[in-house]
C-alpha cells in the first residue's frame, strides 16, 4: 500500500524529501494528481502529496508578478488574476478529462512540471516562459531557489527552465513566482471552412506570418470538428480552421476583418465572439475531442509547423485514427486505435521524416507506457547528459524515478 506524505510547510517538504533520500525511498510527487498517468509509470511505495503547499501568497498586479504555493489550483490563480483583468498568458490546458481525472482540478505545479502550454503558445510561450523564480527541495533534501520576483533577470543559471518540463524528477517546488499579463479586452475567432489539412496549415502560416498578432491557430478536420461544443464548428460538416484574435476592441475588429480577407482564398469565413471562442480554444487546448473515446491512444506531437499535415497523413495511413492541429500545424494531436506498441515507431518514423521534433504518448494503458518510450528517445550524448543532470539534483533517484526516461 502506498503511504502518503503531505507536507504543509516548505520546511516539512524539505524534511520529507530528506527522509526519502536518507531512507532510499522513491517518492511519487503529486499535487492534485490530475496528470498521474502522464509519463512513464513509476514504482514507488510513497507518495509526496503537495496539496498542502497551496495559495496565492504574493500578488502584485502592477508589477505583473504573482507568487503562489506550488500546489495552488490553476482555477484559484485564474480567478485571482481575472479580478484584476490579468491572466496566465501561456493558457495552461486542462488535461484532466482527457486523462480520466476531474476537470478544473489541476495545479500550477503540475502545469510547470509538464511545461504545458495552450494555443497561445505560438504568441506567448509555454509555462517555461512564465516562471520567473521558485523555491524547491532537490532530491538531495536541500532547499534552494532560483530566479526572483522580477520579470527580467539573468542572474545565474536559469533553473526555472530546468524545472519546467522535468516532471518532478529533479526537485520538488514549494512555491513559484509567475509572470502574469493583462487579459485581452476582447477575443474573437475567425473560422475558415472547408480547407483540407495541407491548405489549412498554409492558411495558418499566412495568419501567423501576418502582422495581426494571432494568438491561436488551429485546424480541425471535419470528423474532429463534428465533436465540438460550438455550433458554428460542429455544424459545419466541413473542416474548420480557426484563428484567434485578442486585444482592444477596435483593434480586434480590424484584425478579424483583415484576417478574413487574407484567408478568403482558403474558404468561406465566419467569426466567433467571446463565449464561443472561449469554448473552442479550451477544447483545442485540452484535446476535448478525444476525451470520450477513452480507449484510443493519444499522441501529442511537436513538429515543424509546415510538416504537420504530412506527418499526420503518414501516421494515419498506417494506423487509422484521427488528428487535429494546434500551434499553426506545429502541434499535431493524434488519437489512434489502441495497439500494444502504441504505433510508436510509426509516429516517430513519420516525425523524423518530417524534420524531427518531439512525440509524446500522452494517453495509453500503463503497460504500454511502461514498455515503450513515452517521450522522444534521446541520442547517446543527450541521454548521458540527462542522467548526469539527474545525478546532480537527485543522485538517489528518489523523485519520480523513471517518470520521463528509464534511469532518470
Amino acid at each position, binding site marked *: 500500500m502506498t503511504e502518503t506524505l503531505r507536507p504543509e510547510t516548505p520546511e516539512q517538504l524539505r524534511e520529507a524529501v530528506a527522509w526519502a533520500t536518507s531512507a532510499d525511498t522513491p517518492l511519487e510527487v503529486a499535487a492534485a494528481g490530475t496528470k498521474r498517468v502522464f509519463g512513464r509509470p513509476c514504482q514507488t511505495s510513497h507518495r509526496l502529496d503537495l496539496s498542502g503547499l497551496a495559495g496565492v501568497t504574493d500578488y502584485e498586479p502592477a508589477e505583473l508578478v504573482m507568487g503562489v504555493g506550488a500546489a495552488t489550483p490553476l482555477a484559484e490563480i485564474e480567478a485571482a488574476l481575472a479580478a484584476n483583468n490579468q491572466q496566465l498568458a501561456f493558457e495552461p490546458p486542462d488535461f484532466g478529462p482527457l486523462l480520466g481525472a476531474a476537470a478544473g482540478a489541476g495545479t500550477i505545479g503540475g502545469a510547470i512540471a509538464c511545461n504545458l502550454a495552450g494555443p497561445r503558445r505560438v504568441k506567448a510561450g509555454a509555462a517555461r516562459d512564465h516562471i520567473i523564480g521558485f523555491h524547491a527541495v532537490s532530491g538531495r533534501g536541500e532547499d534552494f*531557489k532560483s530566479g526572483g520576483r522580477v520579470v527580467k533577470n*539573468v542572474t545565474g543559471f536559469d533553473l526555472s527552465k530546468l524545472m519546467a518540463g522535468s516532471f518532478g524528477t529533479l526537485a520538488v517546488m514549494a512555491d513559484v513566482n509567475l509572470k502574469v499579463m493583462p487579459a485581452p479586452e476582447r477575443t474573437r475567432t475567425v473560422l475558415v471552412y472547408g480547407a483540407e489539412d495541407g491548405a489549412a496549415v498554409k492558411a495558418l502560416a499566412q495568419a501567423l506570418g501576418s502582422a495581426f498578432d494571432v494568438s491561436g491557430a488551429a485546424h480541425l478536420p471535419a470528423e474532429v470538428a463534428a465533436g465540438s461544443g460550438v455550433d458554428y464548428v460542429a455544424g459545419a460538416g466541413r473542416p474548420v480552421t480557426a484563428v484567434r484574435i485578442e486585444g482592444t476592441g477596435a483593434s480586434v475588429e480590424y484584425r478579424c476583418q483583415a484576417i478574413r480577407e487574407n484567408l478568403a482564398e482558403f474558404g468561406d469565413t465566419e467569426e466567433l465572439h467571446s463565449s464561443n471562442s472561449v469554448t473552442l480554444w479550451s477544447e483545442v487546448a485540452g484535446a476535448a475531442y478525444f476525451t470520450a473515446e477513452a480507449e484510443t491512444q493519444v499522441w501529442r506531437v511537436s513538429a515543424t509547423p509546415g510538416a504537420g499535415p504530412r506527418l499526420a497523413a503518414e501516421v494515419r495511413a498506417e494506423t487509422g485514427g484521427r488528428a487535429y492541429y494546434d500551434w499553426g500545424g506545429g*502541434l499535431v494531436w493524434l488519437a489512434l486505435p489502441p495497439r500494444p506498441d502504441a504505433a510508436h515507431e510509426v509516429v516517430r518514423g513519420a516525425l523524423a521524416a518530417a524534420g524531427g521534433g518531439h512525440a509524446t504518448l500522452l494517453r495509453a494503458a500503463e503497460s504500454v507506457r511502461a514498455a515503450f518510450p513515452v*517521450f522522444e528517445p534521446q541520442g547517446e550524448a543527450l541521454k548521458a547528459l540527462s542522467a548526469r543532470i539527474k545525478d546532480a539534483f537527485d543522485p538517489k533517484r528518489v523523485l519520480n524515478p523513471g517518470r520521463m526516461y528509464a534511469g532518470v
Partner: protein
Amino acid sequence: MRMPEPDAAVLARRGDIIEQLRAIVPGEGVIVDEDELRAYECDGLTAYRQLPMVVVLPETTEQISRVLRYCHETGVKIVPRGAGTSLSGGALPVADAITLGLGKFKRILEIDYENRSAVVQPGVTNLAITEAVEHQGFYYAPDPSSQIACTIGGNVAENSGGVHSLKYGLTTNNVLGVEVVLMTGEVLRLGGKHLDSGGYDLLGVITGSEGLLGVITEVTVRILQKPETARAFLIGFPSNESAGDCVAAIIAAGIIPAGVEMMDKPAIHAVEDFVHAGYPRDVEALLIVELDGPEAEVADLIARVQAIAEETGAVTIRISQSEDERLVFWAGRKAAFPAVGRISPDYYCMDGTIPRRALATVLKRMAAMSSHYSLRVANVFHAGDGNLHPLVLYDANEPGELERAEAFGADILKLCVEVGGVLTGEHGVGVEKRDLMGVMFTEDDLKHQQRLKCAFDPDGLLNPGKVYPTLHRCAELGRLHVSGGQTRFPDLPRF
C-alpha cells in the same frame, strides 16, 4: 578582480598547445603573438583585462568540436567569445585559457518564412538577422542596444534582452533551437523549428549560461512579422518620480507598450549631443514609450498614454510623426552607453532589476551614493520591466577612481537586491557581478546551480572564473549530505 590561479603546467605546455591548435585550425586562425593577443584582453567591460594564452578562430563546428575535445582530454581551459561586446566581462580571457572566437561564423544558413524561423551561425549579428528578413516584413524581436554589433551566439549565452523585451520577451523566449558543442567535443542539437522539446529543457538552460556549459555553433530563432505601425512618444518629466509614476500607471491600465525607456538628465544630454534626436534638455527625466500594432489600436493607445502622461505631470510630449522620426528617437537610446563616452572617459554600467514600485527610492539612494563616492552617475533604464542601467562615470587614468566606481556599483546592486530585485537583468553576471552572487543567493542555491555546471563540464574548463564566486570541485558538490532524515519527524502529516 581575482581570477583562478593559472596552472603553471598548462602554461608550460603552451608551445605544444599552439601546435595542436594549428593542426586543427589552419592559417591565421591561431593567434599567439603578444601584441596581437593584446586586442583580445577584454570585451565591452574594460575595467578588467587579461592577456589570453592563445586565441583561436575556428571556421567550422567540426574544428570547434576538435578543439574542445583536445582541451577536455588535456585539461586546457576555454573562454568562448562572440563580438566581445559583453558589459559584464563574459569574454574576459583567463591567463591559462584559450580564447575561442566565433567571429568567423557569420553565415545565415536558412530563412524559413513558412515556419517563421531563421537558422544562423552564432557570429551573425543580432541586427543582421532582422536585415536579412525585413524585405519580407519580418524581424527578430530581441534588440539589445548593441544589436548592431553583438552576435546571436553571445545573445544566447547571455540571454540578452533589449528595449522591447517587456512585450516580446528576452532571447530565451525567441530561440527555437541551438547546436551546441559540449566540452567533450560532443555535438548536440537542442530544439529546432518545433516548440518545446521534451526531456529536460536544456535549450532553456543553455540560454543565459554565459558560456559555462557549451559552445553554441548554430541558432534557430523565431522571426515575427513587423507590426503594421509603431509610434514612439518622447515624454519629459520634471522629476524621476513622476516619470516612474507614469510607467506604473500605463501598466496598471493594462497596456503593455512595445518599449518603455527612461533616461535621466545626464544621460539625455550625453545622447542628445551625439544623436541630435530632439530630446528635451530641460527635463529631469525622459520616457520613450513605443506603441505598436494596427493603426486603429495604436491610435487608441496613443490617446490613453497621452492622458496618463498628462495626469502624471508630463511637461513635454512629442509623438513620432514618421518612421524616420521614430528611429531617431530610438537611435539616441540605443547609443546611450557609448555616447556617455563623450562626457566621461570611462563608465561602469550596472544592470540590476528592481520592482518598479521601488524606482523612486532607488534613485534617491543612488543620488546619495553618487555624492558619497564623488562620482557622477547617468541613468538609463528599461523602465517597463524595472531593469536599471546606472552608468557610473569615472576616469581610469585617475588613481583610485576605478575602485570607487566598483564600490559604488556594488552598492547599487546590493540596493537592487534589498528592494526585492536582482543583480542583473540582461547583461549577465560575468566577472563583474560574480562576487556579489552571495548577496542574492545562499550557498545551497549556488551549489545547485554549480551542480548543473558539473553535469556539463565536470572539470570546470569552460569559461572559468565567471558567474560563481567560489568554484567547488564537482566531486565535492556531488557528495550527499543529508540531515534530519533518520527519524520519522512527528509533525509531518501522513496517511
